[in-house]
């Protein structure tokens, strides 16, 4: 078709002279119209193409069939222990529901369903299925096998919905660590609640955590150690007929909590069990390690000794007269099975002399002693990832008698967690490291180190703790945990009943650390109202809390890679140089 040519000629002619015939004019008009139509069609096609490209680019996630997606409840991250074992994980379980108004034959449905679900009461099921309701749960948390079988029954008007459920494989053993979650998978206690408040809540709010896999959280806990501590403490509850027992084990270099047990406990798989009374006592299932505070008795002497030695006012070679009880107005403070003579500093520790400890504290000065407690973190809120915490209660200012009783752990209550963190600082070379439930390397922890006592004082404290295990109240514990260079201090406190100390009801505690030649772990075990195991045994802490500690160390140390050693040199190397000199001088004389 040669419109172009015709037009060209036309245009040229137009310039010169306009003498086109009617036929020619019409042809020109037609050609213009055709062009217009072509342009129009091209535009339409361009539009269609651009729309096609647009559709192709758009990432359309809705599927064509429009199938109903399951309403998944908020998912939570797995909790792993330090070795990757699961402490908590989500399981997706089908739950059966009915749409009663869509059920045609109720009798048939009830008959068929009760065959698959024999636990369900037929009458209840019939009531549930009848009526004009749109929705009714029938059975929650079924197995996938049950789901398949029920599906094959082909009953109209019943269907399944997947629900995410939190599962704790170790159940009671990790109770106070993890806490619990509610039906909606929100943390209501323990570490679960902590991570909700810290992290997941934000994710869930912006809708990211739904039906989506979250990175697992690595906890510091070692499930094996946790099991052993739980096992031994449960044993202690029976053995000593105690009303409560608790313990915590911390890595003194990284601050990681390897095990935390508080009995009586509950099953985190059944959160309601946390509120059940224990032996008729309500609220007994609290976390005693962080939410309980106690007079830890003579174990607190460890703190007093560290303070006195670190202040420089008391030397390890000093001697104090512990012959006579000390009087404060109408109070007199004496020793339990006192030696009634002049005692050296190691002897005061070994014999747990109240008189000696008071004198050491007085040499240091009560103000200095009070500020030392602050330095060791006793006044701070617990830096642990659990919502159930309490603050220690220590008088802001000590009176003379208050300071005296405080030096041997009376008249002030601290949480066991505060105590274990302080013991960690005392044995690890003098650095306070905040305890944590997150897995943490020593390098990361080192950035948080805060020096509280000198390395030299720390070394002396390790010697004293070991000495007490070899010759003092930790003997029974050390016998069990022989070879692991274990040391500790006992504490037996009389409980306050109606405003008075009751000698029948005691509270036993044992703080310890091992291996003392290269300190790695610190532990505290408390036993509330222990009884004699048998006629031959006593009720003081060495008999119960101490022996429990020994049994735990014996089982746990090999797992933690500590090789037993019976090398006597390891113990003698702990002896401070000053004391060795005295020995040498004595020999020379």
């Amino acid at each position: 078709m040669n419109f172009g040519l015709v037009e060209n000629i036309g245009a040229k002619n137009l310039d010169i002279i306009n003498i086109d015939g009617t036929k020619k004019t019409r042809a020109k008009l037609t050609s213009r119209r055709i062009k217009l139509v072509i342009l129009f069609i091209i535009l339409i096609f361009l539009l269609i193409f651009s729309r096609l490209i647009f559709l192709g680019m758009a990432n359309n996630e809705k599927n064509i069939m429009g199938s109903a997606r399951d309403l998944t409840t908020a998912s939570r991250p797995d909790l792993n222990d330090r070795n990757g074992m699961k402490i908590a994980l989500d399981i997706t379980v089908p739950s059966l529901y009915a749409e009663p108004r869509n059920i045609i034959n109720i009798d048939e449905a009830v008959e068929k369903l009760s065959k698959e679900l024999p636990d369900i009461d037929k009458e209840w099921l019939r009531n549930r299925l009848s009526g004009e309701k749109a929705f009714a749960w029938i059975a929650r948390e079924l197995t996938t096998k049950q789901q398949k079988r029920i599906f094959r029954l082909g009953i109209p008007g019943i269907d399944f919905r997947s629900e995410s459920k939190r599962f704790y494989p170790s159940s009671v053993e990790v109770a106070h660590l993890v806490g619990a979650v509610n039906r909606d998978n929100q943390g209501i206690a323990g570490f679960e609640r902590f991570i909700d408040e810290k992290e997941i809540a934000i994710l869930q709010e912006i809708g990211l955590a739904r039906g989506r896999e979250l990175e697992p959280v690595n906890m510091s806990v070692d499930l094996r150690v946790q099991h052993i501590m739980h096992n031994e403490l449960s044993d202690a509850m029976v053995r000593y007929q105690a009303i409560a027992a608790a313990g915590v084990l911390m890595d003194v270099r990284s601050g990681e909590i390897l095990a935390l047990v508080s009995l009586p406990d509950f099953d985190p798989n059944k959160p309601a069990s946390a509120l059940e009374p224990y032996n008729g006592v309500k609220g007994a299932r609290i976390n005693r390690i962080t939410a309980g505070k106690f007079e830890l008795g003579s174990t607190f002497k460890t703190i007093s000794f560290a303070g006195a030695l670190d202040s420089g006012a008391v030397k390890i070679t000093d001697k104090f007269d512990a012959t006579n009880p000390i009087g404060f107005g109408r109070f007199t403070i004496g020793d339990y099975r006192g030696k009634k003579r002049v005692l050296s500093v190691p002897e005061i520790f070994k014999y747990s002399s109240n008189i000696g400890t008071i004198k050491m504290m007085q040499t240091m000065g009560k103000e200095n002693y009070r500020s030392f407690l602050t330095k060791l973190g006793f006044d701070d809120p617990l830096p642990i990832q659990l919502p159930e915490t309490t603050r220690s209660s220590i008088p802001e200012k000590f009176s003379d008698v208050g300071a005296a009783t405080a030096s041997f752990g009376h008249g002030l209550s601290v949480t066991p967690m505060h105590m274990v963190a302080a013991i960690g600082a005392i044995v690890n070379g003098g650095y306070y490291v905040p305890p944590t439930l997150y897995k943490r390397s020593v390098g990361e922890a080192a950035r948080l180190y805060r020096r509280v006592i000198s390395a030299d004082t720390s070394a002396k404290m390790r010697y004293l703790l070991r000495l007490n295990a070899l010759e003092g109240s930790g003997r029974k514990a050390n016998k069990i945990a022989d070879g692991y260079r274990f040391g500790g201090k006992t504490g037996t406190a009389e409980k306050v009943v109606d405003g008075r100390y009751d000698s029948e009801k005691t509270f036993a505690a044992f703080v310890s650390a091992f291996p003392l030649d290269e300190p790695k772990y610190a532990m505290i075990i408390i036993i509330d109202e222990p009884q004699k195991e048998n006629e031959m045994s006593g009720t003081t802490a060495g008999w119960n809390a101490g022996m429990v500690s020994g049994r735990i160390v014996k089982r746990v140390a090999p797992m933690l890679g500590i090789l037993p050693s019976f090398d006597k040199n390891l113990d003698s190397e702990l002896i401070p140089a000053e004391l060795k000199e005295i020995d040498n001088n004595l020999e020379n004389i």
Partner: protein
Amino acid sequence: MIRWLNIILFILAISSLIGVYYIKYQTIEKAEQKIALEQKIKEQKNELSLLRADWAFLNQPAYIEPIIIRHQEKLALRPVEQEQFIRFSDLADREISEAERQALSDLFESLDKGVDPIGSLIEELAQ
């Protein structure tokens, strides 16, 4: 010429129509398959979550310990005592008798010569 063009265009139109329908139904089929697969993935994920839970439960020290206690007598199991831990380096070398030493050096000699007595033994067994 125009007539041929029209015929070609007509045929093209018809075939593209068929093509479009074909693609449309294929898409629906694929979508169905996708949903079926998604359903299967979801089911298997659910099952997997249960299996993982089972695995975690069965590996619990609290689950294993009672089993050990139950079979303690039969298997003569006892907790390891401190004295039973030792470093490899602390172990004394086992004493080797003269006969054993001779046998060993014979073995190395024959290996040097390219004869592998143990290998040939295994080969014999395999046959």
